[in-house]
């Protein structure tokens, strides 16, 4: 259940971050336009890349401390 919490937490952060970065708040239309769709795809990919990179660097720090 702890893992489930972490996954849903990550997902919610992902949704909020990519909305802030990709979706115009002028709300001119109900549908996602092409630019927004592409941005979302790239945003998710980059979020995961950041996730991985931060994890790697923290592992490094952790092993240096030992």
């Amino acid at each position, binding site marked *: *259940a702890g893992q489930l919490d972490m996954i849903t937490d990550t997902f919610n952060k992902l949704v909020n971050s*990519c909305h802030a970065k990709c979706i115009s708040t002028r*709300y001119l239309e*109900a549908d996602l336009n092409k630019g927004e769709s592409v941005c979302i795809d790239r945003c*998710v990919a980059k979020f*995961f890349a950041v996730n991985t990179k931060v994890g790697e660097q923290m592992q490094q720090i952790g092993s240096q401390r030992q």
Partner: protein
Amino acid sequence: MDFSQLTANDQQAMEAIVARKQMKDFSRLFTSLVDRCFTSCVDDFTSRSLTSREDECVSKCTQKFLKHSERVGARFQEENQKIAGGN
């Protein structure tokens, strides 16, 4: 998530936990969406009711967010599968 390896009792317990979390998540989605669309769309306080512009904006805001969340969910699943599959 794969619960097929758990005992029947444990599976039931997990399903109850997931159902409870889904309910909590739904109400969290609702309040955050209200907050988001109110903040972005409502700025005319010359009357108590929503102007037609504000009304349309809230519709679009809600629908767009749900579509956005759906798309993020699809990409999220794909990325997770990559990790699980071990590319």
